[in-house]
């Protein structure tokens, strides 16, 4: 309440601007006869690193949640066919409008003392929701880079508490978020300007609603950093763009 009160005007004004802009943009889109999309697969070449197991013995509740499925770190998650999960792809250059907002609010859930998803991508000023499905209290503590102007926050969420709705006012790749009560709980918020997508467990992704034009697409992975590729999108049909990270 207090914190929000202080700088409540920032999200409000930003979202206002967004609404106006997007309506304006929509008209454009109508005139620009449909949009394209960028799709593809992100893979990891080489042997993925050993992921340490997580010992949750500190909190019996968490231990119970994973009684028969031991959990490991999620710094590098490789799915079938070398597909790399939790990679965020976004248009870093060439796009200067406002992306059409998807109606679905990005949700960051705390489940079995882990973050699902491990990496949550969202647009600048876009509202996201932090929920808890656990019967133990977590605290959510994103630590953005002070230079970006994003304001760090740190709040607890007791079992059954209402979701926390927040948004970031500046682009930042990526904001580490952690739970101090359960130190192994660690994830990322990725805040980008343009359209974005996150890879599924098979490494596939699709960036929707990309107006025709030529762009630079950046893929970010928490361990291996970023890769960039150029792509030209034409109206109507999807453009394919694959990324391959090399295991260190």
């Amino acid at each position, binding site marked *: 309440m207090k914190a929000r009160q202080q700088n409540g005007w920032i999200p409000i004004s930003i979202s206002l601007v967004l609404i106006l802009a997007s309506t304006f943009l929509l008209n454009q889109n109508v005139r620009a006869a449909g949009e394209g999309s960028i799709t593809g697969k992100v893979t990891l070449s080489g042997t993925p690193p050993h992921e340490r197991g997580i010992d*949750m013995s500190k909190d019996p509740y968490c231990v119970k949640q994973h009684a028969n499925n031991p959990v490991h*770190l999620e710094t590098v998650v490789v799915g079938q066919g070398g597909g790399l999960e939790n990679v965020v792809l976004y248009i870093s250059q060439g796009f200067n409008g406002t992306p059409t907002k998807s109606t679905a609010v990005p949700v960051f859930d705390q489940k079995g003392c882990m973050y699902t998803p491990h990496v949550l991508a969202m647009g600048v000023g876009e509202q996201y929701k932090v929920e808890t499905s656990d019967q133990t209290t977590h605290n959510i503590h994103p630590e953005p880079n002070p230079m970006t102007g994003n304001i760090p926050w740190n709040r607890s969420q007791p079992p059954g508490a209402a979701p926390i709705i927040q948004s970031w006012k500046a682009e930042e790749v990526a904001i*580490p978020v952690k739970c*101090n009560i359960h*130190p192994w709980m660690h994830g990322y918020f990725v805040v980008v300007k343009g359209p974005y997508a996150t890879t599924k467990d098979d490494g596939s992704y699709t960036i929707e609603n990309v107006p025709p034009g030529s762009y630079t697409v950046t893929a970010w992975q928490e361990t291996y950093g970023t890769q960039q590729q150029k792509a030209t999108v034409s109206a109507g049909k999807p453009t394919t763009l694959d990324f391959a990270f090399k295991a260190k």
Partner: protein
Amino acid sequence: MAKLLAVTILVIAAVSAIPIEEHIWTAPADISTHGPLIDSQMSDTMGETGLCFLAGQFVLALFIWMYSGRGREHRIGRFPGGATGLVIAAFLIVGTEVIALGVLGSKAWAQVYFAPLKPGAMTVEAQAGQFAFYFRYPGPDGKFGPIHPEMISDATENFYGLDTQNDPASKDDIVTAEMAIPVDREIQLWMHSKDLGHSFYVPALRIQQDFVPGLDLSIHFTANKIGKYEIVCTQLCGLGHYNMKAYLEVMSRQDFDAWLKQQAALQ
């Protein structure tokens, strides 16, 4: 009214004493070699102070009962012995009690803190941070690798900031989330705080010691009962303080070795 007050005081005093008499709520049973002295010290103190408590409340109640509402016809008396007598009494009773408890107490204290470390004690390092304990075993080489604060990262579970690439001593260090120790063997515990003030409190072990940031302390103790016990933090360290805990497993020698191997494999 006054007589009622007298009765109330007596009743309250009596009722308050019952749970302590009956040992309804007691600390976890002692599992340490130094604990018995502390426990006996505790019960001695409880006996003596309990007596003072009951006596004090009783006299208060008695006098209130006897001397309330007396009119001018009663003459004002003087307590036998007067102030001097009472002062002497205070000095004798409390003084002796104080000296006795003080001396005994310092013996118990000395046993915890001044006893020299026995040879062949096992060294473990405990690290406290918001809001969890992590423990480190030196591994075969018996040496702890140096800590690089800038490398500490919960994200990669490098809780200690070990540089396993470059520091040979760090390679075989074993970092665990729960503390296991062999039974009947003296443990030297090095206490290191990662961030703020914390405390290492094991009620069953009769051990409580604060972590002092920027200053590593060591305590040593011997556990003599196999079982699983709780380590809790007693130094307010932030919002997760209430849930800052870890488990202490006292194991047989064989179990401990097995456990240590298993943990080493997980590194």
